[in-house]
């Protein structure tokens, strides 16, 4: 059982990383639709990882919200905007180098801090992310942030409706 989970972890992790590479640096296609589809796959792999971490509720929500709603919205917008000639553009080498350097620096910081702290040692893995427990926590300890987030969603909704109006005065 342990072994199977480890194998699954490596499969999902490798798939997630490969798909993420295809999102940002796809060698075959610059089309945003391809990026979006690979991002969907990445989200799916992350949901798999969540399941391995026993966060079942979040895994389902990840699929439902990210893959089912957010990425569909992305696809919609990409298709509504007619992006034919946008695909052929050269990446400027200067920005590429700068980007790689900064990303390398950040990655180096991550790796160093990981080596320095050794977070895995002595940790016990036994939390179940069940819906009821999460819900209880959400409605007791985190009630205020929960309400604030709901207001945020309302504001976002109003904002989107306003922004999407054709003749904005």
């Amino acid at each position, binding site marked *: 059982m342990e072994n199977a989970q480890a194998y699954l972890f490596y499969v999902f992790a490798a798939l997630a990383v490969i798909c993420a590479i295809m999102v940002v640096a796809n060698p075959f296609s610059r089309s945003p639709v391809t990026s979006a589809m690979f991002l969907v796959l990445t989200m799916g792999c992350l949901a798999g990882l969540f399941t391995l971490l026993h966060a079942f509720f979040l895994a389902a929500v990840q699929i439902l919200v990210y893959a089912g709603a957010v990425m569909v919205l992305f696809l919609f*917008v990409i298709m509504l905007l007619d992006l034919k000639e946008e695909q052929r553009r050269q990446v400027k080498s200067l920005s590429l180098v700068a980007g790689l350097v900064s990303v390398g620096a950040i990655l180096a910081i991550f790796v160093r801090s990981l080596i320095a702290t050794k977070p895995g040692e002595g940790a016990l893995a036994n939390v179940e992310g069940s819906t009821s427990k999460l819900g209880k926590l959400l409605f007791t300890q985190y009630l205020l942030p929960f309400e604030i987030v709901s207001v*945020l969603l309302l504001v976002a909704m109003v*904002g989107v409706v306003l922004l999407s109006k054709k003749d904005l005065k």
Partner: protein
Amino acid sequence: MNVGLEHYLVVSAVLFALGLLGVVTRRNILVIYMSLELMLNAANLALVAFSRFNNNLDGQVMVFFIITVAAAEVAVGLALIVALYRRRQTTHVEDLNLLKH
């Protein structure tokens, strides 16, 4: 063959770095947005892993909030992109140089 916290954190760090790479190097505003989503997801993964290995559900609650905020952010952001496209007929960040000229 034991998968511990550090494995998940490495995956999370790699995903975050890839997202950042996308934000810095890609010039299409939609792809930049997707890279941002990738970074948020990487953070989610780290939080869930912490929550699991520290025997504490707070991380998962945090992820719940992140997903909600990300959804709101995407809705507003895409509405802005559509509005922008209506005015300028482009989604390319280098063409958005009105302040330069």
